[in-house]
């Protein structure tokens, strides 16, 4: 029997560690086995199961763009047993990765459209992958707007890239922090993400909105987009329920008839209408 053991992870070397925000780190991972790296492929929106050997596995998206080959990146916050195990690893050490799992953002379908990315807090990583993917194929899209908010200036992740995006002439970048989270020299917006979206979002015409954030942010941003004239098939999000297997077996992320890990994590708002909102 030469069947592959789905649960056996790839061994990855942590090539680079970037401290993003308090408790938040980005790891750049390289396959230890070159032959695995050669055949590995993924698309924007997919996720994986990351192992800290000795602690267990945790689910996060692949935060790097599929257009940047040879490595993958993940960004996570140190919150539980596994993430703190991961956080204690250093450059050069080994961790595990299983994936890529789940569906993808339909970038091909979005050709010729305006894109508006709306993200909150630690939910920028799943967005970062698709943002870079879109920027690397910039000629395929019209206007690109990024709206990103966090609790405080300190909590904004990818600070270098935020600056890079803001400096690009072909990107409109809006950053915001929750009221009270600003510093004296803060030049961005102040306010919760839904409020800022209402203020700065582009016209709904020929535009796709991609929303990612904590459940509460998503639930308040959707009505704003609706008010702005976005129809349900113009709005996309990526969900994350608790997962163990990542491949539709363990039963945790089952919501209605769908498995977040298999039918998602990317959903259009139209698709979300078919699953019960209370269960994600």
């Amino acid at each position, binding site marked *: *029997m030469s*069947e*592959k*053991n*789905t*649960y*056996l*992870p790839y*061994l990855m070397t942590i090539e680079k560690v970037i401290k993003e925000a308090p408790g938040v780190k980005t790891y750049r991972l390289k396959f230890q086995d070159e032959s695995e790296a050669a055949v590995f492929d993924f698309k924007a929106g997919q996720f994986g199961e990351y*192992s800290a*050997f*000795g*602690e*267990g*596995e945790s689910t996060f998206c692949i935060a790097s763009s599929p257009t940047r080959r040879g490595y993958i990146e993940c960004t996570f916050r140190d*919150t*539980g047993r596994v*993430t703190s195990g991961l956080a204690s690893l250093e450059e*050069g*050490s*080994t961790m*595990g990765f299983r994936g890529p799992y789940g569906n993808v953002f339909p970038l091909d379908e979005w050709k010729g459209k305006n894109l508006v990315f709306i993200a909150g807090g630690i939910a920028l990583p799943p967005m970062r992958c698709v943002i870079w993917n879109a920027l690397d194929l910039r000629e395929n899209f019209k206007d690109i707007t990024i709206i990103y908010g966090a609790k405080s200036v300190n909590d904004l992740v990818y600070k270098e890239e935020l600056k890079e995006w803001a400096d690009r002439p072909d990107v409109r970048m809006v950053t915001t922090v929750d009221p009270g989270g600003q510093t004296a020299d803060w030049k961005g917006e102040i306010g919760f993400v839904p409020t800022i979206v209402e203020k700065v979002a582009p016209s709904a015409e020929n535009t796709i909105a991609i929303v990612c954030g*904590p*459940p509460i942010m998503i639930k308040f941003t959707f009505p704003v987009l609706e008010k702005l004239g976005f129809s349900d098939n113009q709005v996309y999000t990526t969900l994350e*329920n*608790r997962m*163990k*297997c990542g*491949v*539709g*077996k*363990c*039963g*945790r992320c*089952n*919501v*209605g*008839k769908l498995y977040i890990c*298999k039918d998602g994590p990317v959903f259009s708002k139209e698709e979300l209408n078919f699953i*019960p909102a*209370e*269960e*994600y």
Partner: protein
Amino acid sequence: METKYISQGGLAQWFESIIASGKRVYAPVNSRGQVDFKLVKNLSEVADDYIQTTQSIKATVYPKAEVLFSYEKEHGKVNLTDFDPDTIPETVLWRVHPCDAAGFRPLSAIFNWDSADKLHNAHLAKTSVISFSCANADESCFCTSVNGSPGNTSGSDVQLTVLPDGGAIAEILTPKGEALVALLPSVFEADRGDKKEHYLVDLPARFSLTEVNAKLNKAFNSTVWKEQSERCIGCGACAFVCPTCACFDIQEDVHGSKGRRIRCWDACGFSLFTLHTSGHNPREHQSQRWRQRILHKFSYMPDRLSVVGCTGCGRCSRACPVDMNLLEHITSIAKQ
């Protein structure tokens, strides 16, 4: 498929030859006031006077806890040791009820609907099932309502229907069944023309599956979940005795620099099953978890996997400390 007759004495000889072949044999044994599958060596150990074992046979193909792989850390490097299917011994399950054998199909559907589950399939490949059709049932049994029957052969390699003379009709159903018969072919005599259906318990269907499925499609926001689940105390007894429940957890067993990743049973009824690290819990209330259990078995699985997640064995109803009777609840949904 071939039908044969085997005498009472022949059955005993055949059993002995299976044991002699070196395969592990699990059969229902009565001990501590409960009948459950245990490793046996002699036919005399096997219980025959019971309606249902407390636990299903699923643990043979989906162990309660199983090593997915093991690893060793050394100077920042990690060495992995994959699960080895060759370590699983050949296993024969003797005197399995049809509702238990029928559980293999939904179980495999869950494990293989997307990617193949190497571990489950390895267990399945090494397991042969000799089922006994049912001459008795009790008020918790309802296999006939969920596409099953007391003589259902799904999941069985050989099915025996015991006759009044102590012999049995032997239906040899699969190549694995033929291999078991080949251990002692001489005891399998020509079919005497006994009618199997004469020896099966009469169990009228209690509800219509299509009707239930249709009702459930519209029942997500029904108050029925809250009403039915009020007395549910949120333990995992129903899920753990169920022949088709497959929800699992993945855990870590660490001893210094060595470790094993372990898959173990879990249950959607546990309050922390879906808890996010952030503290958000999509299924916060017991009623939501009860709804998930019923919908998953009777709506999601039929729609997504084309199998029902219930074989009508009635174990959950028997095991429940607070009498959450599945049959009663499903029939009441069907009647709504």
